[in-house]
């Protein structure tokens, strides 16, 4: 018997209105004041605000509603159940692998809890270059409110050995570094955040805002894919959805239609632009589906004499922003250093090489440390991001060209990481690139990294942060939505997720999504309350 209370099971027992669309046998129609598409960071926060304002809210989610007992802490369970494309979503050219959630709570259900406010430099660019009113002063109260709501606070425990490498290396080299705040309450420090929090300590949307919305009478449809908005003369007149099969993969033929006063899109920065493209939203600015940012990420592994056990303990607790500040924000790309947790399935597909070299690396997993560098894309004049488009069947796809400014930054990032890892005492360092081998000294690594060919599908690129594609703009010619998330030219359509960011964030984006969604959902609730 479990000793861990399950807030989802308890809520269902007290009468939450949740329907698994895969169980519907006939076409079904719903009506609501507000329909919210997507239940991640943006949708979750919006659902709580709007339902507590007394509005009748309907939530649409493509993924399942996981119960506590579904979190078995096995990679083989978690990736197919909780992630887009089994944690292997990729750009069209397969160069970048994207981790993105697909369950109630979206990516917040499986993220690593890192909580950063939108950096002041990013907000300044939004203000100066894009004329958006989202200054530090404007955003501060929203950050404060959501930080309280989600228990975002300094993490009191010592970093695990994997994160301690970053702190030690930075210390040795005199590079600034800090501790990451986390959205947790009563965290057991297990290290399995990426497989869904089994103790419900992570204050994801799954255990905070969504339960609050359901308690306030919101309804939730799971395994339901929003397919198309019907647009007529400046307003949305309805939403068409597909019920999925019980595996959550394919449309099962049952259609679901929704009619609401207002439509909120929060499916994330790939699915939201795709839904707008399928709906043929007039695109006066030419920005729909454009400027998709990923924080393209390169990695460096290192072997230590002592055990690292990088699967154990809070996965991300130390960061360094040193290399975000060594040049101008719109100059050569800066990068944020962090560490990922290391679990065998994801490690095995991420580590390069084959045969004996791969097996040898895997066998040393307890001694393996991994560091990552998130590139701040979207500020440099030649960093315009990627593009979401539709395939012949209407499914979303993402093209992202890794051009020279990104490659130049990648090489600097491999160098920085190797130097830090050796400074922290690494015996060997391996940039994650097919042409690299484990190097035994910093001079060897430096020399080799300078020679690495800068080509896709040789260097490993990953991303866990998808942003943009429906950017905010001061007027209809400069963006898809305004700073409140209201879609230009549409009376009753808002985008309240990370799609609206005009650049990348330059930090893990969950808190940026929360705070902006909180601000804009609060404004929307006021508007609709007077409607």
């Amino acid at each position, binding site marked *: 018997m479990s000793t861990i209370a399950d807030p989802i099971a308890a809520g269902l027992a007290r009468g939450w209105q949740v329907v698994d669309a895969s169980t519907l046998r006939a076409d079904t129609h719903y009506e609501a004041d507000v329909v919210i598409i997507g239940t991640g960071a943006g949708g979750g926060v919006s659902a709580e605000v709007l339902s507590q304002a007394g509005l009748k809210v309907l939530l649409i989610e493509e993924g399942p509603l996981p119960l506590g007992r579904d979190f078995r802490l096995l990679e083989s369970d978690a990736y197919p159940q909780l992630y887009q494309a089994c944690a292997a979503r990729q750009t069209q050219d397969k160069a970048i692998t994207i981790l993105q959630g697909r369950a109630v709570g979206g990516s917040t259900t499986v993220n690593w809890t890192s909580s950063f406010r939108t950096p002041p430099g990013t907000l300044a660019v939004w203000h100066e270059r894009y004329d958006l009113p989202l200054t530090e002063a404007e955003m501060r109260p929203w950050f404060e409110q959501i930080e309280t709501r989600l228990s975002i606070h300094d993490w009191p425990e010592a970093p695990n050995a994997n994160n301690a490498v970053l702190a030690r290396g930075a210390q040795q080299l005199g590079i600034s570094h800090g501790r990451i705040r986390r959205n947790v309450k009563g965290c057991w420090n297990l290290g399995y955040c990426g497989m869904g929090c089994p103790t419900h300590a992570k204050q994801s949307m799954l255990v905070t805002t969504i339960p609050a919305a359901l308690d306030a009478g919101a309804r939730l449809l799971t395994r339901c894919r929003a397919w198309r908005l019907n647009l007529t003369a400046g307003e949305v007149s309805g939403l068409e959805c597909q019920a999925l099969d019980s595996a959550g*993969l394919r449309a099962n033929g049952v259609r679901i239609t929704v009619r609401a006063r207002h439509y909120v899109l929060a499916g994330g920065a790939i699915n939201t632009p795709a839904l707008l493209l399928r709906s043929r939203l007039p695109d006066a600015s030419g920005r729909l589906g454009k400027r998709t940012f990923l924080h393209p990420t390169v990695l460096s592994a290192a072997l230590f004499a002592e055990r690292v056990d990088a699967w154990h303990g809070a996965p991300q607790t130390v960061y360094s922003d040193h290399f975000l500040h060594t040049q101008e924000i719109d100059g050569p790309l800066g990068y944020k250093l962090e560490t990922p947790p290391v679990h065998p*399935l994801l490690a095995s597909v991420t580590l390069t090489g084959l045969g004996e070299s791969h097996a040898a690396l895997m066998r040393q997993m307890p001694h393996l440390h991994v560091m990552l560098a998130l590139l701040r894309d979207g500020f440099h004049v030649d960093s315009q991001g990627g593009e979401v488009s539709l395939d012949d069947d209407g499914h979303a796809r993402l093209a992202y060209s890794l051009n020279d400014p990104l490659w130049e930054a990648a090489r600097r990032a491999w160098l920085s990481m190797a130097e830090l890892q050796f400074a922290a005492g690494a015996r060997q360092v391996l940039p994650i690139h097919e042409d690299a081998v484990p190097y035994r000294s910093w001079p060897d690594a430096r020399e080799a990294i300078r020679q690495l060919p800068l080509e896709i599908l040789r260097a490993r690129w990953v991303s866990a942060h998808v942003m943009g594609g429906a950017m905010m703009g001061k007027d209809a010619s400069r963006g898809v939505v305004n700073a409140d998330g209201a879609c230009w030219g549409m009376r009753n359509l808002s985008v309240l997720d990370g799609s609206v960011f005009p650049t990348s964030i330059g930090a893990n984006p969950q808190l940026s999504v929360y705070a902006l969604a909180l601000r804009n959902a609060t404004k929307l609730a006021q508007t609709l309350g007077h409607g």
Partner: protein
Amino acid sequence: MHTAKKSTPLLTRRQFLRVGLAGGAVLLTARLVYGPFARMRLAEVPEAEQLKTLNPRTATALAAIAPVMLGSAFPPAEPEETRLGAQHALVRAIDAAIAAMPAPVQAEISQLLDLLIFPPTRRLLVGLREEWARAEQDDIRGFLYRWRESRFQLLRAGYQGLHQLVCAGWYAMPASQAAVGYPGPPVQWKLAEGAA
């Protein structure tokens, strides 16, 4: 359907399934390597034993690639039954992983696997004159390195796809995870769940 499926397969789907049923891992993969079986009606094969996305020929190719891709993480060629059992388990794991992918991704994987087994592309792109079941390890290694280092993006993407499928399939298994020193779900949680 793809033209590759029209040429004579090494094993039919039924034959492949039958062995899995009748003889378990050993017989199954032995036949994968050494040749065809007598036919059996698909209706007699329980659903749980049926492969969802792979066919006998793509399964054979993946089973042949696995020992080369995974190196000493994979059981050695002797004793044969251990090696064959591992190939069987891996093929099933890969099949399950592909089946959980969205339709567009499944279609791409199936194109990649068809490229491996369609005789003209197998000879020209993979460089194998013989069927996968009779391919030498050195030839498979040569193929993997050629694709990995190819100047053509498409082939490098193909190699990376195979790397992902084989590694994800293998390191998803509890035994493979234990073999690299990974303890699995933490003890505190297991105790709280009453599972330990």
